[in-house]
């Protein structure tokens, strides 16, 4: 594309109220189409990680009987992982699934991608409450600082998922088996992230490599703040912030590069 045509990109004259309406309608209709517009349907979405938690806890709590906080760490890991897996899978196919809107009119397509993960976000918000209540029930009432830190880690995870979704959604239009590749990566990633096992059972020299996988620092830091009651180091926080910013910025860059021609690949 030449500089002339970039400069000529039509100015979008969408009023702010119309843009807000578009976001709300996409979120509402996505919820309705997925869960048939009922709370009962939404409960099924929560049951998947819940049942996984019960099964894994029943099996692995014997293996890690020496670690009393195992079930608390497990629920935190599983719920954060569920958001990551669901959010990235939905985000990846978002532009393809909503391609019929892209060819209708000039629409800010990043809104189609970001709102596609709204259901995973709603689930994360519910999990946030469930985790805090679960911890309190088992005598680990989180301090206000721990809750603030956990919220910040969730925001970092959201930034990672949005960054991934922006990049993968435009790549998926060109590479239609990317979702199958990502399914395999997610399956392997479930075991790379220390979800069902404590990180300290692995030699410390491997920890660095596990932390490269973005969900690992989010899960480990959340456990440290909520269960162990210890705050990660400043260096650790800087690493997580940098990781989230890197994922988001790379996602935005790939999206800005490929999205102008997205409609041609629908």
């Amino acid at each position, binding site marked *: 594309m*030449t500089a002339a045509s970039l400069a000529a*990109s039509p100015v979008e004259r969408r009023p702010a109220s119309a843009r807000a*309406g578009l976001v709300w309608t996409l979120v509402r209709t996505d919820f*309705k*189409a997925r869960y048939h517009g009922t709370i009962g349907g939404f409960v099924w979405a929560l049951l998947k990680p819940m049942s996984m938690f019960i099964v894994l806890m029943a099996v692995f709590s014997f293996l890690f009987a020496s670690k009393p906080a195992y079930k608390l760490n497990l629920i935190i890991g599983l719920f954060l992982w569920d958001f990551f897996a669901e959010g990235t899978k939905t985000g990846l196919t978002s532009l393809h699934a909503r391609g019929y*809107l892209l060819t209708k*009119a000039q629409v800010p397509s990043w809104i189609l991608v970001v709102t596609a993960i709204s259901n995973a976000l709603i689930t994360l918000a519910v999990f946030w409450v469930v985790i805090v209540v679960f911890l309190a029930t088992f005598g680990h009432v989180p301090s206000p600082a721990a809750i603030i830190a956990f919220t910040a880690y969730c925001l970092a995870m959201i930034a990672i998922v949005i960054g991934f979704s922006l990049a993968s959604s435009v790549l998926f239009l060109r590479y239609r088996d990317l979702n199958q590749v990502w399914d395999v990566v997610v399956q392997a990633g479930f075991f790379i992230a220390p979800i069902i096992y404590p990180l300290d059972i692995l030699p410390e020299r491997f920890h660095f490599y596990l932390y490269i996988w973005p969900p690992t620092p989010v899960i480990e830091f959340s456990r440290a703040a909520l269960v162990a009651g210890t705050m990660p180091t400043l260096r650790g926080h800087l690493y997580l912030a940098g990781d989230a910013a890197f994922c988001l910025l790379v996602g935005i860059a790939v999206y800005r590069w490929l999205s102008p021609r997205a409609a041609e690949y629908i």
Partner: protein
Amino acid sequence: MAPITVDAVSKAFRIPTVRRDTIREHVFGVLRPQQFHRLQALDSVSFELRAGETLGIMGRNGSGKSTLLKILCGVYPPDRGRVERRAAVTPILDLGVGWNPELDAVDNVCLIGSVMGLSLAEIRRSMDEMLAFAELQEFANLKLAHYSSGMSSRLAYAVAFQAVREVLVLDEIFAVGDAGFRQRCEERYRQLHAKGHTVLLVSHDPRAVTSFCDRALLLDHGRVVAEDTPRQIAERYVSSLTSQAAGV
């Protein structure tokens, strides 16, 4: 000032001889370079859409009409040249598609209305009017999966006619529905024209172009080959079809 100025716009598509749509195909084909045909859909197209006029565009299949409309509406970027839009454009493109089959008509109207720039308040206020225009009040809560293509198209027209702010871009006007629906569309078009809205109309129908347009262009192989009165352009279009059929 003209609501839309198209200045030397060109657009080409690279059509591969064998499509590679997956990572697997790209990896296994890394030693076999892909070959492409270049399809020049638009070649240095320039024109102005003047305020308040209805401009008709005619051309045979493959002349670049749909690509031009998608560039005007911001769906496709041009390869070269520039499109200056100084007014909000409401398109009716790809009729019959663009719906979520799992949602009913009301939710789909909210979705498409929002995409076309209507606020939720505007959509709610005019919902009954849009459904009545499409004669679909009884089927307002039926999922679009159960709609016929004619019903979907009527709904698309109803939403787009409601969403018009300044410029309306129509691909094959009034090509759907029965005589009654077409009459309502024509009536609505006349109301918009009387209010001073600008319309760009692409059609294969000489009657539609001569009846509704103030001026017309003829596209051929991605180029504007004529700009004249609607009657002249319609006659030239029909004669080009006749000579094509005769193999001239």
